[in-house]
């Protein structure tokens, strides 16, 4: 069933304005949180089993717990609003319709960790959203939800917006940090993790926009309520971005664990008239592809992992029978070879090499070994790269080449 808790303000007139937000119960969570002991907030977020909405699904509370408590250095929060994963368009909805929800989440996390400077790293293309967010920030400053001595609590917080310049890799948390520091967006070697050494070498919390936007309701309604909305180990709802050959592409908020099949056929209205399902990419372009007989799967991190794919950013891309699978493979490979930052050998060369083979298959008939070569190169890349982009490229390419081998062989000499 569709469940509007996170998206309850979507569609409400002027929902992006603070007066409307306040009318609808906004900033109550901040008022409540500022009365709470920060440790209690941390406990609540941990108990909520809120898993990161950016892709990796790491429990948000656990990550907060990694931030060292007693340090001389300042600590930072970065909201990851880069939304670069192809097929993903949920964060832009939150920031367009309910920017104060994100701001409220950021205030609570900052208070919990003892952060006084927070950033929103927003993808460059979202210019109008950045402007709107900027307005929302100034509204929040005017009402003293931001700035000095917030609501007389003695707590200070400033939030800054930083616009990216159009690189997928700047959504990767350490690439983001480098970019935010004004450098080339090259991911950093981990460990150390950002929670210990992040922005400007200081402890840093990085969370996806949707993750942060869940915080106010966790505080207001409690961890148990949140867990009940979803699954015991994967609480809450998720905003699914559904695109491709469906009748009603768009964002759908559903409980974690909703069946993929239902999302496609119930909420998104099924395939466009006359089209037949060929494949589904269930969690953003990085997720291994599923065939029609594999889509009866609950949409949560663990179930999709078991099904050999991943929930990622919960972006469902529906592919119909008429779409040549080589086109899908090419789009995937074009994207990753274009977006590989070039820092590490296997991803830089592997992606480009695979891409060159695929493009050759359009020009001339290939050999069967070409498909084996794609599989071999993707396997050699997998698990060997500096940042997860290498795997994000290797996994879908591997799954697609293996699952649709028969069709791909029509591009090779028999």
């Amino acid at each position, binding site marked *: 069933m569709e469940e509007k808790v996170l998206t309850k303000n979507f569609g409400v007139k002027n929902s992006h304005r603070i007066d409307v937000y306040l009318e609808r119960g906004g900033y109550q969570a901040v008022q409540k949180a500022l009365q709470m002991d920060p440790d209690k907030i941390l406990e609540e977020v941990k108990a909520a089993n809120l898993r990161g909405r950016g892709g990796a699904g790491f429990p948000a509370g656990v990550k907060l717990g990694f931030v060292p408590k007693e340090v001389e250095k300042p600590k930072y929060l970065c909201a990851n609003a880069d939304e670069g994963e192809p097929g993903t368009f949920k964060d832009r909805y939150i920031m367009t319709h309910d920017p104060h929800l994100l701001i409220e989440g950021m205030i609570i996390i900052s208070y919990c960790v003892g952060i006084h400077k927070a950033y929103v790293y927003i993808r460059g293309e979202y210019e109008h959203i950045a402007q709107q967010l900027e307005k929302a920030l100034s509204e929040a400053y005017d009402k003293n939800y931001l700035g000095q001595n917030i609501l007389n609590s003695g707590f200070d917080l400033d939030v800054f917006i930083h616009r990216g310049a159009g690189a997928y890799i700047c959504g990767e948390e350490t690439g983001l940090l480098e970019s935010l520091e004004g450098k080339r967006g090259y991911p950093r*070697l981990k460990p150390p993790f950002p929670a210990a050494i992040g922005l400007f070498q200081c402890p840093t919390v990085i969370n996806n926009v949707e993750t942060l936007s869940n915080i106010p309701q966790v505080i207001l309604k409690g961890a148990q309520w949140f867990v009940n909305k979803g699954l015991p180990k994967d609480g809450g709802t998720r905003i699914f971005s559904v695109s491709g050959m469906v009748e009603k592409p768009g964002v759908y908020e559903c409980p974690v664990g909703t069946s993929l099949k239902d999302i496609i056929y119930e909420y998104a209205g099924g395939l466009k008239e006359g089209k037949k399902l060929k494949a589904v990419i269930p969690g953003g372009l990085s997720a291994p592809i599923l065939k029609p007989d594999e889509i009866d799967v609950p949409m949560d991190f663990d179930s999709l992992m078991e099904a050999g794919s991943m929930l990622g950013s919960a972006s469902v891309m529906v592919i119909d029978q008429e779409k040549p699978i080589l086109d899908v493979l090419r789009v995937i490979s074009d994207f990753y070879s274009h*977006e590989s930052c*070039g*820092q*590490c050998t296997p991803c830089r060369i592997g*992606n480009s*090499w695979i891409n060159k083979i695929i493009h050759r298959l359009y020009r001339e008939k290939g050999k069967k070994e070409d498909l084996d*070569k794609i599989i071999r190169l993707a396997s050699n890349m997998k698990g060997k790269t500096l940042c997860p982009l290498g795997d994000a490229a290797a996994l879908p390419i591997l799954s697609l080449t293996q699952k649709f081998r028969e069709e791909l062989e029509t591009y090779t000499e028999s």
Partner: protein
Amino acid sequence: MSKEKTKMIHIQIDGKSLEVREGTSVLEAALQAGIEIPHLCYHPAFPSEGSCRMCLVEIEGRPDLELACSFPVKDGMKVSTQSEEVTKARKNMLEFLLAEHPLDCPICDKAGECKLQDYYEQYGFFESRFEEKKEKKEKKVEIGKTLLLDQERCILCTRCIRFLKEITGTRELGLFNRGVHTGVNIYEGNPVENNYSGNLVDICPVGAITDKDFRFQTRNWFLGSGPSICPLCGRGCNIDIEYHPGFPHFPVPKRVYRIGPRENHRVNGYWICDYGRYHYSYIDEDRQEQIVDNKKEKLDSWERVLDFLKERIKKLYYMNKTSRIAVLTSSWLSNEELFLIRKIFQEDLNVEKIFLTDPLPGEEDNLLLTPERSPNSKGASQMGLNFKELDLNKLAERTEVLLMFGSHITEHFATAQTQEAIGGIETKVLLNPHISDLNSLMDVVLPTCVIAEKEGTLTNVKGLVQPFSPVFEAKGHCRPEWEVLVNLAKKLALNFRYYSPFTSVKPIFKKMQKEIGFFGTKK
């Protein structure tokens, strides 16, 4: 904290038990134990970056291969650098690197000392399976006065970029574009301009950055190499001199082709400056190789020259007129040579007119280059020589025998001025490794050796006494100054017992240690 840092722990690499310092990386531990793990982006002078992925190893209990260059050792850790999975990953990484690499080896300066080439021979040996078009990039970018960059050969290890960031702080190189199109380059119109740029050629593991000074001059496998000390400033950087021993029937135009740093963390780390690197022509050019006898007294052998000198000096000695001898030394001489000058002239002969002529000071930088332009000014100042202030009139006044080491006086006085001052001196002898304007003013010019051709020790500005030995033999009549001085002392029969053991530099050094406190305490 510091206590923890020095804690020693035990690990095993390929079954070999090692005791290593806690906190070192697996790669450093392996290298210290002489176990090779291939690596391209790692350089001991910079924090590891982990981009080349060549150093993957297996660590017991870890699900995936780990980077040896960044993985810290832990007590009881077991590492395999040779397992099937490791060798496979290594080979695959080489395959990636070579896929887009132009196979320029036949025309590449680095061939023979290229890490990519070496690793392919050691760990690769596969047939190329790359059938696609290679990327086209810039093959000849002038990134600095002496530096050329070939972006196609570059494997993007970023050592060059990190050197300019971490060591010189000048940051002239950066990365441009993305993915497989990524390339190193300078920011438009701002070439690499610092006194350490030549080091980029050394640290580039492949032939991407080449040195115009060396480019296409010879093949590196023809070159011999010997350790030496750079004599061009007071730092005394440890260097390797690479020279061509010549072909049997084919003359080569010079001996020295290249100077490179020799690692020494007490002096120069991994680097040398460009001034020291590129000014090596003094070793082969304008060398004084024959004895010059302007008096036409048949002084055509060392034996005759020494006899001639003995006569002049002895005469004054017996007449108690050694005050009529003047000696011009220089801190281009070794400690032992300066010591001999002190013994023979200051102590045995009571010569008072001892002067020091050094090259004029030059610019210094905040890394290695010192203002002194000679390698032993510290040694000269510690030798207990009572140098007189340099003054041509005092030098010449009533002087009958002038002994001059080196021609640095030309930097202090115009030659005509010197000529006027010393013209009346009866016997003028110059010992010099180079042909100079002074040759015509002298009665005799004796060819001596440069540091690369002799043995001895030098004291650097920090007071470190560093030994050096000949990299190659001297040419023609050239002899080291210490040998000339010992032979002269023997001829003069000053103190036979004292000088006769001085058949090599070592006994002189030992005596110096005994007699001069500075060298005794400092070793």
